[in-house]
C-alpha cells in the first residue's frame, strides 16, 4: 500500500472524524493554541516594533536582539515552562509567543523605518499630532510589511504548535506523536497534512488581507526590497 493510499484510507475512516481524538476537535485545539499565541505576540510585536521604530535612535542593537530571539529553542521553553507551571497549554503558548514575536517585531520596526521621513515631516507640518501621524500615515504605509511579519509568525506558530504534544497537550501534534509511538505513519502523515493545509490557508488569508489593505493598487508588498534594507548588523 502506498503512503498516499494509506493517508487516503486514514482520512476516509469515519472513526478519525469523531470524538476527542477526531479531526475537528484536534484542529480546534490547534487553532486555540494558535489564536492565543498570535493575539499575545501580535500585541507585543506590533506595539514594540512601531514604538521603537519611531524613535530616532539607531536600530542596529534592537534588530540584532530580535534576531537572536529566533534561536530560543521552542522545545526547551515548553519543557522549562512545564516544570514551572505544570502541564497544560500555558507553557506551550509562552513558547509560541516567544517564537512569534521576533518576526512580527522586526517587520513592524522595519515598516515604520521605511516610511519616507519627508512624508512624516509633511504630516507634522500639516499639524497632525504624533498619535495621528502614527495612525494615519505610518501604520497604513507600513501595513504591507506588518502583515508580512504576522504572516510569517503565524505560519511558524502553526507548524511549531505540534511540539505541544511532546508534553501531553492537544492539537494536531497528537497525531504526530501518538502515531510515532505506535509506528502508525499514516496517522503521522495525517497530522502533517492537516498542519500544512492550515499553513496554506494562512498564506491565502494573508494574501487576501494584503490586497484588502492596499486599496486601489494591485501590487504585491515590496517584501524583497524591504528585506534588503532590513539587513541586521
Amino acid at each position, binding site marked *: 500500500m502506498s503512503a498516499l493510499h494509506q493517508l487516503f484510507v486514514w482520512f476516509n475512516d469515519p472513526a478519525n472524524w469523531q470524538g476527542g481524538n477526531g479531526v475537528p476537535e484536534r484542529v480546534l485545539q490547534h487553532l486555540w493554541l494558535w489564536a492565543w499565541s498570535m493575539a499575545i505576540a501580535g500585541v507585543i510585536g506590533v506595539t514594540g516594533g512601531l514604538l521603537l521604530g519611531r524613535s530616532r535612535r539607531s536600530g*542596529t542593537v534592537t534588530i*540584532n536582539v530580535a*534576531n*537572536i530571539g*529566533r*534561536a*530560543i*529553542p*521552542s*522545545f*526547551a*521553553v515548553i*519543557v*522549562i515552562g*512545564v*516544570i*514551572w507551571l505544570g*502541564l497544560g497549554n500555558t507553557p506551550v503558548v509562552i513558547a509560541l509567543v516567544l517564537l512569534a514575536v521576533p518576526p512580527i517585531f522586526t517587520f513592524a520596526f522595519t515598516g515604520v523605518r521605511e516610511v519616507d521621513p519627508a512624508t512624516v515631516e509633511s504630516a507634522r507640518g500639516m499639524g497632525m499630532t504624533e498619535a495621528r501621524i502614527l495612525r494615519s500615515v505610518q501604520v497604513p504605509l507600513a501595513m504591507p510589511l506588518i502583515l508580512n511579519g504576522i504572516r510569517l509568525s503565524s*505560519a511558524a506558530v*502553526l*507548524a*511549531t*504548535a*505540534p*511540539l505541544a504534544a*511532546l*508534553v*501531553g497537550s492537544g492539537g494536531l*501534534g497528537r497525531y*504526530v*506523536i501518538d*502515531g*510515532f509511538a505506535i509506528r502508525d*505513519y499514516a496517522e*503521522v*502523515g495525517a*497530522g*502533517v497534512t492537516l*498542519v*500544512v493545509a492550515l*499553513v*496554506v490557508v494562512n*498564506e491565502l488569508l494573508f494574501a487576501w488581507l494584503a490586497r484588502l489593505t492596499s486599496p486601489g493598487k494591485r501590487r504585491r508588498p515590496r517584501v*524583497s*526590497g524591504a*528585506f*534588503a534594507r*532590513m*539587513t*541586521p*548588523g
Partner: protein
Amino acid sequence: MSALVASQPLIRWSWIGDHLGEIRTALVQHLELTFVAVGVGLVLSAVLAAVAIRFRITYQPINAVTGIMYAIPSLALFILLTPITGLTKLTAEIALVSYTLQILFRSIVAGIDSVPASVRESAQAMGYTRWQQRWRVEIPLALPVMVSGLRIATVTTVGLVPISGILGSDQGGLGTFIFDGLNRGFNTPIFVGATFTVLLAVALDVLLVRTQRLLTPWTRRVRAT
C-alpha cells in the same frame, strides 16, 4: 512527564561541573549538524536562486515549494523520514536543510535584486563579462542582504537541532540534554541544553556579522553616518 519534580533546585551546579566533557561533545555535535545543514542548504539555495534569477518565471513555484517545506512541522518531518532513512544523522540533516531553503533562497534573490540597474550597466559598459559582472559586482554588493538571510537561517537551525534529539542521542546535539532531562524529570540538563543552544546561536551570529564586515568594508562607512 508527571515525574517532573518542582522541589528540586532549578539548576544543580555540580552536575554541570561533572558533565563538562559531555557538554563539549554535544556542543561539537550541535555545531556539526548546524554547519552541514546550513552549508548544504546554502549550496542548494544558490542553485535554485541562480535558476530563479535566470528564468524569472520559476521564482514563484520555487518560492511556493520551499515555503511548503518550511511549513511542515520539524518534529513531524524528523519522524516521517525515519521509515526511509532511519534514526540517523541523515534524517536530521534532510529535515534541517529543508528549513534553510526558503529563507536562503529568498535572501539570495533579494540580494541580487537589490543591486541597482545603473551599477550593472556600468559594469557592462566597462567590458565586464557576464561571469565577472556576477562575481565581482553583483555578489559583493548583494552580500549584506545574503548574509542577513544566512544569519536567520543559521540561528533558526541552531534552535531546531534540539528537536532532532527525538531521533536518538547521536542526532540531537544539545537537545540530547533536554530529552534526557524530560525523561528523567531532572531540570538541570534541560536548562543546560537550552542555555548553550542560545549561546551558540549568539556566537555564530556575531561571527557571521564580523565576517560580513570584513568582506564588505565599504558598508562600514555608510553605517557610521
